[in-house]
């Protein structure tokens, strides 16, 4: 797995971004960015492309589904792998995300090893 790949964490809860960043760093990733909602994430990606998005569903301004849809409709960005951070009680939201083109999902709270296995599918 290429540990220099650029990963964008998208979540409106700073503690959650902090946890995800620490996990990614513990796995060896050095190029980790953060955005606090879909709107900020989209601007960041359009400014500098990322290799993978790790995103929550429920966010203000632009939620995970809206961010995913915007990426999939953009010919330059539609191939970016998009992993949804979801909860066991968010089946409907997850289904919508999968239909909209989410690459994969990981259920919170997850372990670093589980995250590593998901990332390895998209960052070879």
């Amino acid at each position, binding site marked *: 797995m290429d540990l220099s790949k650029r990963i964008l964490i998208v979540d*409106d*809860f*700073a*503690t*959650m971004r*902090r*946890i995800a960043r*620490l*996990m990614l760093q*513990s796995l060896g990733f050095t190029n980790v960015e953060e955005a606090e909602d879909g709107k900020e994430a989209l601007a960041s990606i359009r400014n500098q492309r990322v290799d993978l998005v790790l995103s*929550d569903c*429920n*966010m*203000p301004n632009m939620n995970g589904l809206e961010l995913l849809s915007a990426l999939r409709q953009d010919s330059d960005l539609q191939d970016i792998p998009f992993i949804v951070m979801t*909860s066991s*009680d968010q089946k409907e939201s997850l289904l919508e995300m999968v239909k909209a083109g989410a690459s994969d999902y990981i259920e*919170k*709270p997850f*372990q*670093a090893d589980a995250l590593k296995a998901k990332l390895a599918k998209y960052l070879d």
Partner: protein
Amino acid sequence: MKDQSMIDDIIASDPEMLESFVKESRDCLTLAETDLKYLRDGEIDTDPERTERAFRSVHSVKSAAGFLGLDNVAELALRMETLLDNMRAGTIPNDPNTLALLLEGLAMLSTMLQDPKGASSINTRPFLARLSENIQEDANGFE
């Protein structure tokens, strides 16, 4: 089964993590309280964004608490999130009884956050049972 050693390692690598979580969670709960009081004191069903924001606040606290091994906090927040989810979907009315219950839950979460590691000793079962009863009664009686 959750790997507590992994969670402990994360907290250990960032000593300010727990403190940061408590501060951010308190801010979220204060926002949720403001929104629910607005709904309680105003017209019913007038502002869906208030319910949506309260849902997001409780959802965030639940998710992070789960990672940090604060199971009692995560479980209470999960039940409240379910009630709020039903409210925003319209399957449960945001009537005074439901809002009072949610506000009581927010107060309990705030108490737990005063000593998050000690929160596991707080008996939340009676309140969780009341939440569940309320969901069932309202879900059956609301068209």
